[in-house]
C-alpha cells in the first residue's frame, strides 16, 4: 500500500513534469525569441529549475514532517508556561512574512507588469507567495494538530486559526495577487474543515470572506472588467475576453489529436502569457484532446494518491499536511484548466508542473516531496513513535 502509493505518486509527478517540459519547449519559444533572441533560452532555464527542483523534492521527501511539530522549545515567561512551541514552523512562518514585506523594499523587491510580487536575487526571481502557500499548510497543520479536539471551540479552532491565516493573506492581497490569496485562504479553510472545525463558526466566516472577495473584485474596474468579460462569455467583444477567446481558439484548434508538436499557431503572440498561466492551451493545441485528458487524469491520480495518503497517515499532522499539499497541487491545476477553458474567471494561477517559472516549480516539487514524506510514514504506529521522536527532538534542540 505505502510503496504502491509512493511509486504511483512519483511516477505521476514525473509524467506531469516531463509533459510540462515538452509542452513548454514549444510554447515558450516565441516569448524566448522576443526576450533573448533564442528560442531555447527559456526552456534551458526551466530545465535548470527542474533539476534544482528534483533536488529540493528529494530533500523534502527525506525530511521527516514531524520535525515541524517536534522541533520545539518549552519556556516560561513570568507565570505563563509555553510548552513545546514549534520553533521551526514559527521561524518558517516569520521568514515568509518577512519576504512578503521585503518585496516592497527597493533594491531587492522587483516590480513586474506593475505588480510587486518578486524578490530579485540577481540570478533568480523569487516569488514568496508561492512558498507562502506551503508554509501556510505547515503552519495550519501544526496548529490544528496541536489544538486537537479543541478545534471545535470557537476561540482556538476558528478565531486563532484565522489569526494565523490573516497576516499572510493580507500581505499577499496587498500585492494584488488575487490568485495566491484565494489559494491560501482556501487551503486554510479546507484544512480547518478537515480538522473538524465547527462549521457553524466557519461557514459564516467563509461566506464573509467570499463577500469580501467580491467587494475586492468590484472595487477595481480592471478586475471587474475581467469578471464581466468572463460572465459575458467568449463571444463578447470585450477586450478583456480576448485572451480567453484566443485560449479557447487554441484548445479548439487541437481537436482530437492536435496539430503536432511545435506547430502551434496561437503561441505567436495571439495568446498572451502562453508560456506561463496559459501554457495548457498550447499543449492542447499541439497534442489535442488526448493530451488534455491525460493531464486531467494525471491530476486525478495525484488527487487519489494524496487523499489515500491523507486518510492513511499515521497521525493528524500527517493527515492535515497530506491533504493540504494534495489540495495545493490539484486545486491549482484544476483551477488553471478551468480558467483556460472559460469555466472560471481569469486569475493569476499557474499550472503546476507546466508553467514557466522557478518558484512555481520549486514549490510544487517541495509539495510533492513532502507528500511522499507523509506517505512514507503510512503504517507506522504513531503514538509510541511520536513519543520516542518527541523525546529525541526535544533533546536535540
Amino acid at each position, binding site marked *: 500500500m505505502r510503496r504502491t502509493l509512493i511509486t504511483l505518486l512519483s511516477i505521476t509527478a514525473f509524467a506531469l513534469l516531463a509533459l510540462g517540459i515538452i509542452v513548454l519547449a514549444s510554447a515558450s519559444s516565441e516569448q524566448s525569441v522576443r526576450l533573448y533572441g533564442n528560442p531555447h533560452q527559456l526552456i534551458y532555464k526551466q530545465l535548470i529549475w527542474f533539476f534544482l527542483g528534483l533536488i529540493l523534492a528529494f530533500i523534502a521527501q527525506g525530511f521527516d514532517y514531524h520535525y515541524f511539530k517536534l522541533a520545539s522549545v518549552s519556556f516560561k515567561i513570568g507565570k505563563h508556561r509555553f510548552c513545546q512551541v514549534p520553533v521551526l514552523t514559527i521561524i518558517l512562518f516569520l521568514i515568509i512574512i518577512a519576504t512578503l514585506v521585503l518585496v516592497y523594499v527597493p533594491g531587492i523587491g522587483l516590480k513586474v507588469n506593475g505588480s510587486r510580487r518578486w524578490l530579485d536575487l540577481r540570478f533568480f526571481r523569487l516569488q514568496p507567495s508561492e512558498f507562502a502557500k506551503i508554509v501556510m499548510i505547515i503552519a495550519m497543520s501544526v496548529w490544528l494538530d496541536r489544538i486537537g479536539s479543541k478545534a471545535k471551540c470557537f476561540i482556538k479552532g476558528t478565531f486563532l486559526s484565522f489569526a494565523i491565516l490573516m497576516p499572510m493573506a493580507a500581505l499577499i492581497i496587498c500585492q494584488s495577487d488575487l490568485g495566491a490569496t484565494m489559494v491560501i485562504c482556501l487551503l486554510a479553510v479546507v484544512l480547518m*474543515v478537515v480538522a473538524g472545525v465547527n462549521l457553524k463558526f466557519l461557514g459564516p466566516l467563509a461566506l464573509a470572506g467570499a463577500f469580501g472577495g467580491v467587494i475586492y473584485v468590484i472595487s477595481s474596474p480592471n478586475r471587474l472588467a475581467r469578471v464581466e468579460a468572463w460572465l459575458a462569455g467568449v463571444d463578447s467583444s470585450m477586450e478583456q475576453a480576448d485572451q480567453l477567446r484566443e485560449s479557447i481558439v487554441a484548445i479548439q484548434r487541437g481537436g482530437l489529436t492536435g496539430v503536432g508538436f511545435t506547430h502551434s499557431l496561437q503561441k505567436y503572440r495571439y495568446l498572451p502569457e502562453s508560456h506561463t498561466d496559459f501554457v495548457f492551451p498550447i499543449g492542447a493545441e499541439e497534442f489535442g484532446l488526448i493530451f488534455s485528458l491525460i493531464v486531467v487524469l494525471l491530476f486525478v491520480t495525484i488527487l487519489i494518491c494524496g487523499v489515500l495518503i491523507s486518510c492513511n497517515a499515521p497521525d493528524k499532522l500527517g493527515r492535515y499536511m497530506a491533504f493540504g499539499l494534495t489540495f495545493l497541487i490539484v486545486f491549482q491545476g484544476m483551477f488553471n484548466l478551468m480558467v483556460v477553458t472559460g469555466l472560471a474567471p481569469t486569475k493569476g494561477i499557474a499550472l503546476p508542473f507546466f508553467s514557466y517559472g522557478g518558484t512555481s516549480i520549486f514549490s510544487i516539487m517541495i509539495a510533492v516531496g513532502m507528500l511522499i514524506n507523509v506517505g512514507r510514514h503510512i503504517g507506522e504506529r504513531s503514538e509510541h513513535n511520536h513519543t520516542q521522536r518527541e523525546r529525541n527532538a526535544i533533546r536535540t534542540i
Partner: protein
Amino acid sequence: MVYRGQKLTSSWRIALLALLFAGCMVYLAMSLHRVQVVNSADLTRDQVRQSVRRVQVPGARGRIFDRNGICLADNRPSYCIAYYVEELRKRGKWQRTVDAVDADIDRLSKVIGLPREISKKRVALHVRTSLPMPLLAWRDVSEEVVARWAEEVGSFPGVDIYVQPERYYPYKTTAAHLLGYVGRDRPKPLPGQRIHFYLPEMIGKSGLEFEYNEMLTGVSGGRLIRVDARGYKNAVWEGTPAVEGDDLHLTLDIKLQLALEKALDGKKGAGVVVDPRNGEILALASAPNFDLNDFVPAPSHVTWNKLNADKALPLYNRAIQGCYAPGSTFKPVTAIAALTTGKITPDEVLHCDGVFKLGTMRLRCWNTYGHGDIVLQKAIEQSCNAFFCELGHRVGYEALRVVAADVGLGVKTGIDLPFESSGLLPTDEWKRKHMREPWRVGDTCQIAIGQSMLLTTPLQMAMLVSVLANKNSLYRPHMIARDGPGEIVREMNWPAPVIDLVRNGMHDVATKGTGRRVQIHGTEIAAKTGSAEYDSGGKRKKNTWVTAFAPFEKPTVAMAILVEDGLSGGYTVAPLIHDVMVEFFGETPVEEMDDSLNPPAVEDISD
C-alpha cells in the same frame, strides 16, 4: 488500520472534499471534450480568417497601340525608395516604431538630397493600417538618387528600392485628350474577396485610360500573408498570379494624328478624321493640349494649377466636348431636307439680292451685292445664305429637324470616349423652356444656315460629313480596332439624285467655291466651309469650320476641323484640311496655291 491514542474523526470530511474535487475534474474533462472535439470545426475557420490577410497585386496595365502597332502608352519601371517597416520594428508601443521610421526617413533624406515626400502622419497611418506593405517614401526617383542611396545602403537597413510600373507616353502631348491619364487609387476588390492590403493601383482618370480601364487593368492577383497578433507578417504564400491587362489596339493613325495636331498647333480648335466606310476614328485632336507625362505619377501642383488656370482650357477635349454652331457646314442638311420633301427642284432658280427678307426680318447674305439668280448646286458652292434661308422657310423646322436628327445631331455619337457632349438640336419645347420664347420662323431660317441655337461637336460634324461621303450610313464612331463592318446607327435611304446633287455641290466648293484651299494634287476632294459668329466680351468672333471628304467618288476619309476665333472657314481652316489630306494621301504639293499667301479676299471671309 488502527491508530492508537489519536482519534481520526474527519475521514468523511476528506472523502466529501475529495468527491467534490473529482466531480469538478469530471466536469472539466467533459468541457474539454466539448470545446476541443465538438466545437473544434467552427473556430478553426475563425482562426484562419483572423490570421490570414490578402494582398491585392495588380497585373501589369495593358499598353495602347495605334492601328500600325506603334505604342502610344507604355509602362516603364519607376524606382521608389521603400521602407519595410517590419525590419525597423521596435518593441513596445507602436509610436516607437513610427518614431524610428520617421527619424530614419529624415536621415535618408539628407543622404539622397531629396526633401521628404511623406509626413509623419502618413508613416503612422501606414504602420497602423498596412504594416506588411512597403512604405513608399520617395516615388519615381532618378537613377542618380538610386546611386546615392546604393552607396549608403549598409547604414539603412529596412530600406530598399521598390520598382513599380509607371505609365509612359512616348508621344507626350500627342493624342493627350484621347489617351487620357491615370492616377493611383485603392483598387476595386475582386468579387467575393476582401482586400486587406493593397498598393495603390493605376486607374484611368480620363480618355481611353478611363473608358477601357477594366480591360487595361487586367485581373488582380492575390498574395496571402499570415500575420501574427501584432500584424507583422510571418509567412507569405503566392496566391493567384495577376493576369496582365489587355493591350488596346486603336484605329488611330499616329502619323495622321501628328499631322492634325501640327495643323492645329498654336490655335484653339479641334479636328476629327474618320473613315467614312466604317466609323473608325483615324485622328482626333483638340488644341491646345498638354503633356501626359506630367501626370505621372501624379501632376505636380504647379502643373495642375497652370493647366486649370489656362484660359485656353487645355484639359478640355474640344473634339467631343466642345459645342459650336456649325455655320454653313450645316447647309447640306438643309439642302437634303428641301430636296427630299420636294420643296425645291434641282433646277429651280432663286434670286439672291444680298439680303433675305421675311416679314420685317432681314438676314444678310455674306455677299452684299447678292448672288443673283442661282440654283441649288451653285448655292452650295457659293454658300448663299439667302438661298438657304428661303429653303429653311419652305421646308419648315420639323422636317429640317428630322433630317438633322437622322444624321446624328443633338445626340451623342456613342464614341468610346468618356464625357462626350450631345450638342443641341433645339425644339420649340426646348426654346420655351430655356429661353421663355415661342419658336419663330426666323429661328428656322437661322438654323437652316447653321446659326443661332444649333450646337454641334466637331465629332458630330465629322460623322455628318462621313454620311455624305458614303451616301447612306451613319456609323457609330469608335476608337478600338475590330474586324468586320462598322456598327451602323442609322441608314438614310435618300434618293440617289438628292445626295449626288449635294455631293456635287460640295465638290464644287473644293474646286471653285469657298473651300478651294483644301485642294491637293491628284485627289478630288469635296468640302464645305462654314463660320459661325459668336459674341466674346462684346467682340464679334467667328468659329470657323471645314468639313471634307476624299476621294470624291469612293471616299476613304472624312474630316471636320474647327478653329475658334478664325477669319473664315475657307481661309483659316481649309489649309489645315489640305495639310491633313496631304499626309493621308501622301501627295506633295506640286505648286503653292496662287492665293494662299495673299490677304483674304472678301469672298474668303464669308462662307
